Each structure stands twice: as C-alpha cells, then as structure tokens.
C-alpha cells in the first residue's frame, strides 16, 4: 500500500505541490493526469525519494519513507520520463548495472534481467547497444530497468512520451501484465486515452493541487452530461425551437452550430429515440446522427475551466 499525505513542495515562491494526498492499493493502477507543470512529476519524485517534501509524508506498506538509504525504496521502481539508459552500453550491461544498485548480482541478476527483457520483448536484443535501438525499444528497456528488483509499486512518469502507436500498445500490454501480477502502478500522463485505457482511478492535478480523485465512472458523474448527440439537420431556420427540445425529459443542453444540433444527454439509449421522434413529428428532418462520449478532457475542462492541451 502506498500512502501519500499532504505533501508540499515549493521552490522559492513557486509552489510545485500543494498538499497532495493519495492512496494506492496492490493491483491498483492510478493515473495522475494533468497538464505540464501541474505537479505530477514532482509528486512522483517525492514518492521515489528524489525530492524531500517541505511537509507531509510518504508511507510504503505503512512505513514512512525516510532518507536516501531507506530499505523501503526497494519496494519502488521508477520509470523516469527521460530515457535513463547508457546508450553506449548493451541492454544487458545497462540492466546489470541497474540490478547492482539494489545489490542484485550473479545468478539472481541474470534471472531478473532475463525476466524483465522477456516481459518487454527485448530478450533477443539483449546484447545490442542501446544506441542501436529504436525509440520504442528504448522506452521498453526504460521500463524493464525499473523491474529488476521486483518492486511492488511502479512509478511511471509519462512512459510513452515520443513513441509510435505500436510501441505504445506494447508498453500498455506490459503494464497490463504487471497489473495482473498485483503490482501497484502510479502512471502520470497528459494523454487522456492512456488514463482511460489503463487506470482504475484517476487523480487530476492542476497547479500542484488535486482537483479530483475518483474512478473513471465517478469522474464522469461530475459532468453535467456524459454523452453528446450530434444531429445534422436537413434544413434549419432562425426560429428553430431550441427551448422546446431543452424541455424534453433527460435532455441537459442543446446547441445549434452550423446546421448541427448538439444535444447533451446522460442516457444515450433512452434519450436518442425520444429526441429524434420529436424532430420528425414536427417536420425537422435530419441527414445524419452520431454520438460522442464525454472524456477526461471534458472532465478537466469542467473542473478547471481550461483544456488539458491549452494549459
């Protein structure tokens, strides 16, 4: 169990993290979502013991994390955002070095290296120099380097930055395997789709604070609507009765933009027929109907008033 209580960190007058708390149970994958500068990396750095917080505490399995040599650090594996590898050395040599940082040498080290390389699909390339790897392979090796000491908690700081979709999927597959083994994953990202695919729970951060901490379903409940019905009308006129549609039960919002009616509803299955029938009965024909689901981007926008990408 990872417990983070009210950690704060400032650099001069800049508050990087302002009272962040979180809990992560074994087998749970938590997404730390927020724009650049939200405090995600600082939070991860404090949990990993790279930065001492000004106040607050980090507890691993109930024991507070203190000092550089705290044995609890062995329970944590860090996958930094940068490709923290020695390009001139082979993958094997890199992993051997990183294993030795945890006093793993000899046969146990070879076993751990073999397992980690197999997991990320690089066993065949173990003796190649890292500089000859593709970007995606380096990312996978970056992940493998954090697994050698078999940590219970894995801190992943934007582990898919700059990789192609295929490599990203490969990394997701690796993480799902780790999750199935009961590892706790804390995953920072500013890609909503990653958080949506992997995380059981999402913590949204902005300006060093936690603005929401819930399951995906819980977060979507924070939204006034979870689905958007887009109806492309055959014909519109200036006195289109928007207010009449808004008054329909289950409809939360209506907007007419460039001949397309956007209707916000919670339950797509029940509200869609009702809205379409209402339009037909009143002679408002339509050409095309589609639906969009609200996502974490919408959640972030709703919670902060800003877009994730604009921040």
């Amino acid at each position, binding site marked *: 169990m990872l417990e983070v209580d009210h950690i704060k960190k400032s*650099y001069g007058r800049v508050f*990087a993290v302002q009272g962040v708390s979180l809990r992560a149970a074994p087998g749970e994958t938590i997404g730390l979502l927020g724009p650049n500068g939200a*405090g*995600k*990396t*600082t*939070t*991860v*750095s404090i949990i*990993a*013991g*790279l*930065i*001492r917080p000004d106040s607050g505490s980090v507890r691993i399995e109930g024991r507070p994390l203190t000092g*550089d*040599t*705290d*044995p609890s*650090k*062995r329970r*944590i*594996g*860090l996958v*930094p*955002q*940068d*490709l*923290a*590898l*020695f390009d*001139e*050395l082979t993958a094997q*040599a890199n992993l*051997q*070095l*990183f294993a*030795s*940082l*945890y*006093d793993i*040498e000899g046969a146990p080290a070879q076993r751990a290296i073999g397992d980690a390389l197999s997991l990320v699909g690089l066993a065949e390339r173990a003796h190649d120099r890292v500089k000859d790897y593709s970007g995606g392979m380096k990312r996978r090796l970056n992940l493998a*380097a*954090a697994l050698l000491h078999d940590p219970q908690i894995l801190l992943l700081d934007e582990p898919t930055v700059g990789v192609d979709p295929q490599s990203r999927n490969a990394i997701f597959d690796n993480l799902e395997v780790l999750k199935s083994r009961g590892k706790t994953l804390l995953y920072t990202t500013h890609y909503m789709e990653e958080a949506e695919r992997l995380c059981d729970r999402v913590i949204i951060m902005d300006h060093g604070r936690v603005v929401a901490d819930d399951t995906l379903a819980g977060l979507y409940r924070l939204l006034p609507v979870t689905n958007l019905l887009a109806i492309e009308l055959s014909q519109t006129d200036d006195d289109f009765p928007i207010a009449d549609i808004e008054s329909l039960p289950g409809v939360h919002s209506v907007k007419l933009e460039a001949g397309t009616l956007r209707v916000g509803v919670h339950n797509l299955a029940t509200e869609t027929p009702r809205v379409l029938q209402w339009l037909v009965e009143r002679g408002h024909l339509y050409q095309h109907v589609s639906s969009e689901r609200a996502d974490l981007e919408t959640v972030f926008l709703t919670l902060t008033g800003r877009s994730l990408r604009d921040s």
Partner: protein
Amino acid sequence: MMASFRALVRKDIQLFFVDRRALLMSFAIPIAIGSFFGYVLGGQGDQPNASKIPVLTVDRDHSAISRQIVDRLAAEKALATKPSSPDDARTAVRKGQAIVAIIIPPNFGQDSGRAFFGPGLKPEIAVLYDPSHSAERAMVTGILTGDVMQAVSKEMFTGQTGRQMAQDSLARLERSTEIPENDKKPLEDLLRSVDRWNQQAGGSLAGGISRGLTMPYTTREEAVTARRNTRYNGYAHAFAGMVVQFVLFLGIDVGVGLLQQRQRGLWKRFRAAPLSRGVLLGSRAMSAAVLAFFVVLVNFLFAGLVFGVRVEGSLAGFLGVSAAFSLMTAGFGMLVATLGKTPEATRGLSIFATLIVVMLGGAWIPMFLFPQWLQKFTLVVPTRWAMDGFEAMTWRGLGLEAAGAPIAVLLGFGAVFGALAVARFRWEVEG
C-alpha cells in the same frame, strides 16, 4: 552497498573505454602534443640542430678578417649559419626564416684594423633581427663581439694586414700634428713593438699565442640532471605538461558526465535506489581517480618506451605524485559538476579555467620565463605542484622526500575541491 559502489565504478570505466573521444583526448592527443613539445624543447639532448639559432651571414668584404669572422660564427655550437646576400638576408628575417642576419660591410678588414690601433672611423656590422626573438638577438650579438675581437686582433698581431696596419699607423703618427708630442712617443713605441711582434709571429710563433686576443677564460657547461652523464630529456617536461592538461580535461568530462546523467534522467534512477550520497558521488570520484591514474601511467609509459623518459628519482614518489594528482583531478571533476546548470555551459567554463591553471602551472611554457612575482603566485595553482612533482621524480631524479610537498598540496587541493563539490552539489532532482 559495496556491490553497487563497484558496479558504478566499473560502469564509468567501461564507458570510458567505449568512448572514442575520451580515448583520443586521454592518450592520442597528449602523446602527439607531448612528442611535439618534447622535440621542440630539446628532445633527448641528442639532436645537434634542435636548439641552434638560424643565422645568415653576409660577407661583403671578403678580407681575411671577414672570412675569419664568418668561419668562427659557423663554428659556434649555438648557431646554425648560412651564407646569404644582403637582400635575401633581409627578406628571410622579415619572413621569419632566419632569426638574425649579420652583414659585414665592404672594407671591414681595413677599417676595423685602423680603428683597432687608432681613432679611425669604426666600421659598422649590420645585425638584422626578428623582433619577436630579442633574446636570441642579444645572444648572437654577444657571440659576434667575441668572434670579431678574436679575428681582428689575430690579424692585427700576426697577419699580413696587421703588419701593414702597424706600418701605416706609424707613418700617420709621424705626419700627425693633432697628437701631442708627449703622447706620440709611447704610441710610436707600441706600434713598433707590434710591428716587431708581427715580424716574429710571421716566422716562429705561428701557433700558440699567435691567435690574437682571446677570451681569458673557458667554461665547462654541465646540465645538472639526475646523475652525471644523464642528459636532460625534454620529453619528460613535455609529457608531464600534457599529462597534467589532459588528465584535467578528463576531470572535466567526469563532471560534465555527471551533469549529463542528471539531464538524461539517469541520476533519478540512481537516486531512486537505496544508495547513500557517499556511494553515488564516491563511486564517481573513485572511477575518475582510477582513470586519471591509468592515463598518467600510460602516457609516461609511452614517453619511456619511445622517448627514453625515465623515473630517475623515486618510483614510489612518482606513483605518489601520480596518485595525488589523480585524486585532485577527481575532486576537480566533482567540483566541475556543481559549477553550471547545463553540461555545455559547464564544459566551456571549465575548459577555460583549466587552460589558465595549466598555463600557470608551467605545462606549456617553462616556469623560468615567468616574472618572479608570477612564479611565486603559481604556488597557489595545483598544476604547478603536479608539474614540480613529476619533474622532480623524472629528469631531476630527486628522492621520495621531494615528492612529499607536491603530494601533500595536491591531496589538499583534492580535499578542498571535493568538500566544495559535496557542499554545492544539488542532490534533489527537480521534476
């Protein structure tokens, strides 16, 4: 913990040997520059023309005296003379192809003879010189003075010109109305004595004292090195200088490498492991010291095998100075890592600082060329002590006791650099 320490040291050494640039900077370049400087600085002392001053001689007189002067100059050990014409000589000096040109004017033999015995007009020898070599000009002028005096006096006291000059001078003395009568008599006696001497010298006294005026002393020159008959080896100084410079560059690479590791996130990985700061920085310092020591030994080994540089003094002292210098370099490298924020800026700043201390340490220009105050000032520069230590243990051939001060000072500098580095080091890794 020790396994981690060993692995981190091993990793640095491994990275050093797969880095072509590091190998080039630590071995190929210092060896190339050291070899060049060593040759320029006199090599192994067996290169006859290595330190001779190129001098052009122009004889426009072609008299017995002028020929003797040219011959004497040609026989000088310190000079490499070559006959030339006035125009060519001037052009050569202007272009830097010769340092000095000596032009003996027409009638020099006659005019110098007259000026030797009386108040005649003194002939003028033109000495053209390259203004960037004033020291050599002074040396050549001194040699020329001695050679001219010997050539003129020899000819005046033993040669045909001398006899003629003495008789002409006697005739002028008798006709002269300007010289007071009471001065005429002693001068006339002198000239008659010279005339008689010349007549005798032309017969029985051809050798021995017939050589004219000579320097009233001789010198015995001895280069004071480790032992008698052990020649000074310019390569010893040159390699010491280059080793000091390029090992410090290695120190810079260590520091900059640390910053690069921080930039590339590797420092995060190291700091995330349960390792003490002592292990993290200590392993880096240790690998830097081991590599520096290795580079020192390999460079001196090369100098020994190829150029005959020997540890003429204490081997233990030499190893001690090498080890102390290597540890100082490790401390310096750690300090470098705390100087700037980016590797690029730090490298630029550190190279500048290193070149200054290397220059002040006497690695490029021998220390004796520095003004006295600067020589005293360089005592606060660690490179000076490294140079002194290496030179004391190699060609000076001094004992272990002479290595004590350089070792102590270098270790002191290493400790101070290391302490400053630890105090200034940014342990935390910002997000």
